[in-house]
């Protein structure tokens, strides 16, 4: 099983989602490999930091260029690959899309970010020739927690729908715990914020359900 996390916008929480989903999968008993295919190497730095803590270990590997063949080989024997691609249209992103089961596109509920879904949607369509079964979903991230801002989130979901990249039900909200945990190589599961744990777990279950549908 291969999950790719990518998009066409930097700073939307791709690495954060990749890291937290990987740990959530490990906690659920899956064999996981986090692949860092982002030239910025955020997830590799995070994983290095993590290896110096008491947190449950996470296998990780950095990769560049066309990663499709290696990814397929690594995903054999029931291992789940979580590939963190950067916020750009790169060879890494495209080659990951070619072999992925699910692609998640973290997107902030902002006009500038939502606009980039147009490009990503085009990319997903082109990729259909080689990978017709890829399930691509937007993940609304860094959403405002104020209840009065709920309309922003609903509007963003509607935009995602209009680009044929429907949003997951689960939303990742702006919470300090994400930054605090990331800086010390941790995930929200080793930190003290029940709401964050819950939203990552919900996201994971939705993704697992999607992959189940695709079997």
């Amino acid at each position: 099983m291969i999950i790719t996390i990518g998009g066409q916008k930097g700073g939307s929480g791709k690495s954060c989602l990749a890291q937290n989903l990987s740990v959530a999968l490990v906690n659920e008993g899956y064999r996981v490999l986090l692949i860092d295919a982002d030239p910025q190497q955020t997830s590799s730095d995070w994983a290095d930091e993590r290896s110096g803590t008491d947190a449950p270990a996470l296998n990780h590997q950095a990769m560049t260029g066309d990663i499709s063949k290696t990814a397929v080989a690594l995903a054999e024997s029931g291992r789940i690959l979580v590939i963190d691609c950067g916020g750009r249209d790169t060879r890494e992103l495209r080659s990951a899309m070619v072999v992925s089961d699910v692609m998640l596109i973290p997107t902030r509920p902002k006009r500038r970010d939502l606009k980039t879904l147009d490009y990503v949607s085009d990319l997903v369509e082109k990729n259909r020739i080689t990978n017709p079964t890829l399930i691509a979903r937007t993940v609304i991230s860094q959403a405002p927690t104020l209840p009065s801002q709920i309309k922003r989130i609903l509007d963003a979901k509607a935009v995602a729908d209009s680009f044929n990249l429907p949003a997951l039900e689960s939303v990742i909200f702006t919470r300090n715990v994400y930054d605090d945990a990331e800086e010390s190589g941790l995930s929200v599961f080793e930190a003290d914020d029940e709401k964050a744990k819950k939203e990552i777990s919900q996201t994971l279950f939705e993704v697992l359900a999607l992959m189940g549908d695709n079997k």
Partner: protein
Amino acid sequence: MSNLQSLKKKKESASKARSFISQADKGREGERGKRLNVEIPEELHYQVKMKAAERGLSVRALVIQFLQSGVK
């Protein structure tokens, strides 16, 4: 499907995948590109080339990346 046919199909699919991957960072098909010529110090040019090689990118891809983050 005969072995030969299935092999042919596999080959075709691999070639489509390669072509899809090689189009990375070139913008959308049909989107017009513009050429940018700039004279830069030799040392800087060397550094950019080194950085591109380090990251496994082409100089073009790296320059586009830098420019994009600059105009954000």
